């Protein structure tokens, strides 16, 4: 099963190496990892999407992460009300005859074309992983020249519906 783990870390040298090292060392399967600055100086947020076999494993991952000295806070937010977004960049070859077709796919996904050249365009799309993947599937038949994805970054929503509140507690 897929879980989303977010953590805040001290922005010290080697901190990303520590986190990825831990995943290798403990044999955890990681799908994506995204890192960036936060509103606090010197603190970064890391969002990992991991595949685990059971709840015990995700608990073990969060505990191991929490044990890292540079890690300030860890949470498995998969069961909370969250917003999760990923950014996709696609370079697609465009010929005069299929240009309208491609644009007709771009529009309902609210993707945007951010670069146009003689024979290709670059499309930008943000959204949840499912949306990104659906879009890629639709564009694939036209040929994808280059693709870049950032991996998911996520946040708990401001309002948590009571039924969904199951934030992870540490023993």
């Amino acid at each position, binding site marked *: 099963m897929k879980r989303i783990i977010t953590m805040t870390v001290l922005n010290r040298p*080697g901190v990303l190496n*520590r986190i990825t090292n831990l995943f290798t060392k403990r044999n955890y399967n990681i799908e994506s990892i995204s890192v960036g600055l936060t509103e606090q100086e010197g603190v970064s947020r890391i969002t990992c999407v991991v595949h685990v076999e059971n709840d015990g494993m995700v608990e073990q991952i969060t505990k191991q992460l929490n044990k890292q000295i540079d890690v300030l806070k860890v949470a498995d937010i998969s069961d909370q009300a969250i917003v999760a977004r990923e950014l996709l960049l696609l370079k697609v070859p465009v010929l005069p005859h299929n240009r309208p077709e491609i644009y007709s796919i771009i529009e309902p996904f609210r993707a945007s074309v951010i670069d146009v050249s003689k024979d290709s365009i670059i499309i930008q799309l943000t959204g949840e992983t499912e949306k990104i993947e659906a879009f890629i599937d639709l564009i694939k038949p036209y040929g994808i020249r280059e693709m870049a994805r950032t991996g998911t970054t996520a946040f708990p929503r401001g309002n948590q519906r009571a039924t969904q509140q199951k934030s992870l507690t540490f*023993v």
Partner: protein
Amino acid sequence: MEAALKETKAKTSVLSGADLLLKSLEKENVEVIFGYPGGAVLPIYDKLYDSKILHVLPRHEQGGIHAAEGYARISGKPGVVIATSGPGATNIITGLADAMMDSLPLVVFTGQVATGVIGTDAFQEADILGITTPITKYNYQVRDTKDIPRVIKEAFYIATSGRPGPVVIDFPKDLAAAISEEPADQAIHLPGYQPTTEPNFLQVRKLAEAVSRAKRPVILAGAGVLHARAAGFLKEYAEQQSLPVVHTLLGLGGFPAGHELFLGMAGMHGCYTANMALYECDLLINIGARFDDRLTGNLKHFAPHAAVAHIDIDPAEIGKNVPTQIPVVGDAGQALRQLISLGGALPKHDEWLEKLSAWKQDFPYHYESGSALKPQKVMELLFEKTSGDAIVVTDVGQHQMWAAQYYPLNNPDRWVTSGGLGTMGFGLPASIGAQLADPASRVIAVLGDGGFQMSTQELAVIAEFQLPVKIAIFNNKALGMVRQWQEIFYDARYSHSRNPVQPSFVKLAEAYGIKGFEIRTEAEAHSILDEVLNDNEPVLLDFRVDGEENVYPMIAPGKGIHEMVGVKK
């Protein structure tokens, strides 16, 4: 006015990075450094020339870090190591991994090439931060001379608090030489590190209630009890609730072996009573052990009828291998104190205690005597002739198990062994550290001929400091444990496990100016041990033991804890 001026002057005195380092070590009351000089640490060594701190020069960096581990295990204080950049630093990797596995506090300084050339594959450069990240509790690379006092203060705090472990400080050469104004005292800044030492009272109460309901309770005590200096509380609590106690290999000495509630060591070569107690119990109280696979055997058969309570300072250990119903995060000593103060109804478990004591009677460790000198007999003699009061340091292999079985320890912090990593070559250098930590005690280094030859060069340190370590080599001209497994699991195809060619260990010792004896019979063992055990100088004893002897009982890999072989005579 003059005094004020003087004060400001003192505050802004100018020091080099190496000065700051040594000042910090003095502040941390470091008594001994295990170090090996080299290009990148020359500025530090120049300052050490005038320092009062004892410096021990191992003959290989790996020996240095194992000595620091032995020192840490016996003294309870962090072992301090210095190695130079590149090969010096990579030579200590095994010791770091060993200390990480066995939770030993170390503060290790590695030299590094000058900041300007880091990343250029400079002479003797290695990415020590990258290499040591997975095998240290934390690591630093100093980037600014002004940070040195804070970094060292943090390193000592991290190494010794919570679950202890090794911390590496990578020290670029130019920063050691760089002059800086002495920085103002900086506080530790570790917002992500707050180990829980005080256990949650509700959880402790839950555990106390479970104890009073239990019919077949047992305590499994690990090295966490020793790290917490909680052996006294363990005894008090076990006696208060009359709870039987089983030890892990690393926990030995935490509970007196002669006590009627003590069942013995559990695990792959543990005794019948201890393993069966873990198998049949209905309440397993783990205090500071990490359910290592060499202890549990096949997890499917481990404590199948038991509710599991686990007291550990490291929350990540709880539930890692064995599902746990009553987790207690905290220091073993504090948890035990709370349990003692709660008291509570005694469990109704007379039947259980009777059963355990009958097992203890019926299934002790045993071996068959023969014409050849038996290693178990040698261990018994060592026990007898040191009144069971020596510090026992072992290497890894058959002799390690025999030491655990036949040298029953009654006191804490008398046992140094490489448990988690199982590092051959550990014993001899670790005995150096142990003896330096406790000069008044008798230290016996129990080694195999294989492991001894992995760190023979450290005899030079023993000779140099005239450390009265008694080196007992259990010489079976083989890598005994490998040979045993090949005999049992690989049709006695002894692939590269026997050493027909050996130097004369006695002559080798003599070459270092250390007395040596070859011992082939029990009678010789008696007379020579009587002669040498109580004098105040080092000695090497080459016991020519039965090469065919195996360690029993044994749980074969993949088998359950109740499936021991070699239990009965």
